[in-house]
């Protein structure tokens, strides 16, 4: 067994499929434009490079949504992407929308605050999709979707997601290939909800490590025991497996209680692309 699977992808092929996906899934709705919450991190940078190629930069709106504690780097890095691509852009400070709610609750912890910020960004993003006549392009990768490292109805909210079947390791590889600035690719990934926060610090392991494990568990269908046998630490494997299971609720629509003979989600089955 191989504890070090090769996650290398053919970036040209990935780029071709993903730009085709964005173009197809937006234009078949009758729209031609995309709106992206550009955080300054690698995931949204990759998504916007793909969207700009698929639709043309003039048809893409990048929104920067800083909170007062957001790092200056995030704003700068987002600006680098906007300048490089020539996409349309806007900046909306979410502080005056977020703080009144936070200030209502003296005991609010960092996670609640972070969720409020993520959901406020979603509100601004979706409002701009209506104003710009575009669809919200998602920026969640396969690693964070599997680990549930996102806010439900917050940063995970989107109309379509071009990068959700790429592990973070592969996001990095594809980002290099499409020309995302090195400063964005090389910095430690962070949700930037509070100062000094990093994904890998919060998760307790690196993306490079967990991506290999996820690849074996999910793509190669290894059992947890086989992963341990292949060289991954027992506790690491168990905690990741449990984390995947516990976060299933973030990956599905809420269950509807069945009463009739035909119920949405169970026996009313159509693709979203129905009729197009």
């Amino acid at each position: 067994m191989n504890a070090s699977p090769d996650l290398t992808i053919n970036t040209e092929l990935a780029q071709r499929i993903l730009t085709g996906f964005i173009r197809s899934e937006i234009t078949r709705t009758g729209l031609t434009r995309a709106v992206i919450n550009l955080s300054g991190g690698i995931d949204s940078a990759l998504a916007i490079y793909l969207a700009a190629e698929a639709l043309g930069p003039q048809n893409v709106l990048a929104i920067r949504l800083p909170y007062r504690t957001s790092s200056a780097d995030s704003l700068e890095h987002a600006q680098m992407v906007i300048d490089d691509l020539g996409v349309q852009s806007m900046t909306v400070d979410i502080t005056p929308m977020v703080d009144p709610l936070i200030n209502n609750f003296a005991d609010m912890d960092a996670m609640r605050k972070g969720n409020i910020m993520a959901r406020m960004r979603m509100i601004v993003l979706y409002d701009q999709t209506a104003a710009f006549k575009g669809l919200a392009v998602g920026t969640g990768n396969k690693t964070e979707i599997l680990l549930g490292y996102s806010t439900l109805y917050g940063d995970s909210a989107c109309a379509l997601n071009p990068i959700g079947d790429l592990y973070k390791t592969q996001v990095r590889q594809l980002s290099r290939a499409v020309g995302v600035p090195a400063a964005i690719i090389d910095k430690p990934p962070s949700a930037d909800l509070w100062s000094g926060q990093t994904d890998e610090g919060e998760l307790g392991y690196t993306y490079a490590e967990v991506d290999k494990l996820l690849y074996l568990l999910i793509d190669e269908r290894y059992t947890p025991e086989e992963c341990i046998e292949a060289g991954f630490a027992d506790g690491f494997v168990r905690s990741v497996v449990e984390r995947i299971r516990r976060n299933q609720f973030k990956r599905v629509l809420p269950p509807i209680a069945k009463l009739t003979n035909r119920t949405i989600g169970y026996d009313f089955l159509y693709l979203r692309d129905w009729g197009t």
Partner: protein
Amino acid sequence: MKMTLALAQINTTLGNVQKNLQKHLALIQQASDRGADLLIFPELSLTGYVLQDLVPTVACHPRDDDPVFRPLLEASQKLDLMVGFVEEDERNRFYIASAYLSRGQVLHVHRKVYLPTYGLFDEGRFFAWGDSVQAFDTRFGRVGMLICEDFWHASPSYLLWLDGADLFLFQSASPGRGLSEKPDLDSARWVNHILRAYASLYTSFVAHTNRVGFEDGLNFWGSAAVYDPNGNQLIEGPAFEEALTLVQLDLNQLHRTRARLPLLRDERTALVSREMGRILSDRSRSSGR
């Protein structure tokens, strides 16, 4: 004898038969203008692939009183056609089917025998299984048609070979998957291995055409291809894009290849039948040992 085969790799509108029919008629005209004798379309070319609850609303009947088949049968006066559709039988079972049309007649309908119902596939939930595999005569010789998963099982193509097929026409709506460092997807590579193997083992022509476009998150990879009786690829259409790809087949290649390599002559069909009978006589094991 030579013939010009045209392979249509098209995108479809999911559940809109009229719109897909118009695209068929336009491509038939194009293929005819370019001198094609036979034009083949992908699996479910008249309906789109992930139909789910749309199945009963898109079904039709391969007869000249059917509003979808009437114009196709008229068009088949110009050149022969193979199209993909949902067939509803007289007792209201629905099949994934392909029809071969020639000079205003339906020469043959194949109903997909193997419905993949695993992984991303859910065909067995919505469709009935076909229950027959037969070759049929055309003006280009004897032909066998299979649909996607049918050719992932070795037996249907083997039966068609023994039933006289020298030209295999395969149609797919194959979702692209399996991204690695290689320049093509696993799914594309797997299919092309099989096409080449069948052409070589059956010393026959194998033609395959496949959908392009997207349905929700699924991509379809196109790359229609034809292999000759020596197992050589004669042509391959582009990946992921709509295309009409024409190739001339020199049917005399069957004679030359089989003079060199008499696999068909030497096939021990009585032995196959005898051993098959023995293996399957144990009724507790209907799928073999």
